[in-house]
């Protein structure tokens, strides 16, 4: 291994680490909880009618309606009264998207793996189950900053959303590998 290669490898790792720096150290920090009624920044992962997968935007509660807005315009909305159930789960995701993933894969000497070890962040995942006006069942999943999920759920319940009490489930064949990393 030449000094030239080592220098380039270190430079590559430095770039990757600097890219992931904003995420490092946020793993255990609780973000500010949203004020009920105000907009919170979310990523709509899937399921909300008319909204694209992984679209980022603002989620608001106003006048008995939960509204998802992207670039200031309403993309989708649902009456809170039609919500059947709400779940909040905590999950862990790698940050940086596809560019970061490719960069990590291209990093020499397994440097990408070291970066992956730190370049992850915890989120809340909010699942909202609701019925449309024909009775059709929908499920929408949103990714929120950690700590915002429960607050938003409480705000929805306060505005008339239904929730069912949690039922104890007995594990059958699932083999949990890692706790608290379901996303």
């Amino acid at each position, binding site marked *: 291994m030449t000094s030239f290669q080592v220098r380039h490898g270190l430079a590559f790792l430095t770039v990757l680490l600097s890219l992931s720096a904003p995420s490092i150290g946020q793993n255990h920090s609780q973000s500010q909880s949203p004020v009920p009624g105000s907009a919170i920044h979310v990523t709509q992962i899937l399921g909300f009618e008319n909204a694209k997968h992984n679209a980022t935007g603002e989620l608001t509660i106003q006048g008995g309606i939960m509204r998802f807005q992207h670039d200031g315009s309403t993309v989708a909305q649902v009456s809170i009264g039609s919500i059947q159930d709400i779940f909040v789960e905590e999950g*862990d995701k790698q940050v940086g998207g596809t560019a970061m993933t*490719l960069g990590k894969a291209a990093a020499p000497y397994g440097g990408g793996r070291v970066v992956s070890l730190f370049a992850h962040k915890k989120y809340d995942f909010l699942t909202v189950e609701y019925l449309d006006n024909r009775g059709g*069942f929908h499920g*929408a999943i949103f990714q929120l900053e950690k700590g915002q999920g429960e607050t938003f759920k409480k705000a929805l319940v306060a505005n008339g959303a239904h929730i069912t009490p949690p039922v104890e489930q007995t594990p059958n*064949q699932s*083999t949990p*590998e890692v706790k608290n990393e379901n*996303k």
Partner: protein
Amino acid sequence: MKTNKNTSPAATKTTPGLSGFHRPNMHCGQFAAVILLIGVLQLQVFVPTVLAESSIDGKSGGNRPWSVQVDRVEPGGVVLGPSFGTAIYENLLEDLAKTEQFKQVFRSGDRNANDVPGLLILKTTVQKYTPGSETRRAVTTVGGATKLNVRVRLVTREGQVVQEHVIDGNVRFIGGNLRATHNLAHNVASTLKKSPLPEQTAAHPEKETGNRAK
């Protein structure tokens, strides 16, 4: 002598030229390796999807006599996160609509499905679920896979099972854990499209005229 004069400058130019090229080539080699790796990763992500799509092209029936209603996912005794059940359900609806195998795709509970002739109900039961970790996948490459195994049944309104399959959906390398639900739904849609549906006359002889008319 003339030839010597002509050739020697060329030779002297060639020698430093080669050594000059050597170092940039080393840079180019690393750059090329990165490009090649990116290309391979893209192939790994996109080619299976393209192959799966191309393999099911042209096998669907032209008149599409059946409609389908997708039922909610039953956990089947497996501890499954609510987001996973929802993601499987939503991805199934999306992928089944994409295949154009069915005339209409209805959501669970949709009242419009009540009067539709030739309706099949897709029931999905999770048999096995192994929660993985995106971080563990990224660090170890070989560990942390998220695995789903489901039993899907297409049944008529009367409860007659038309098709039954056991299908896997996993994410082993790139992507979040919910990508397993996307892969699973894609596999379910592909499998259903490859399997021929029965003639409606066999299942609903009384509705033959109405269905054929549509």
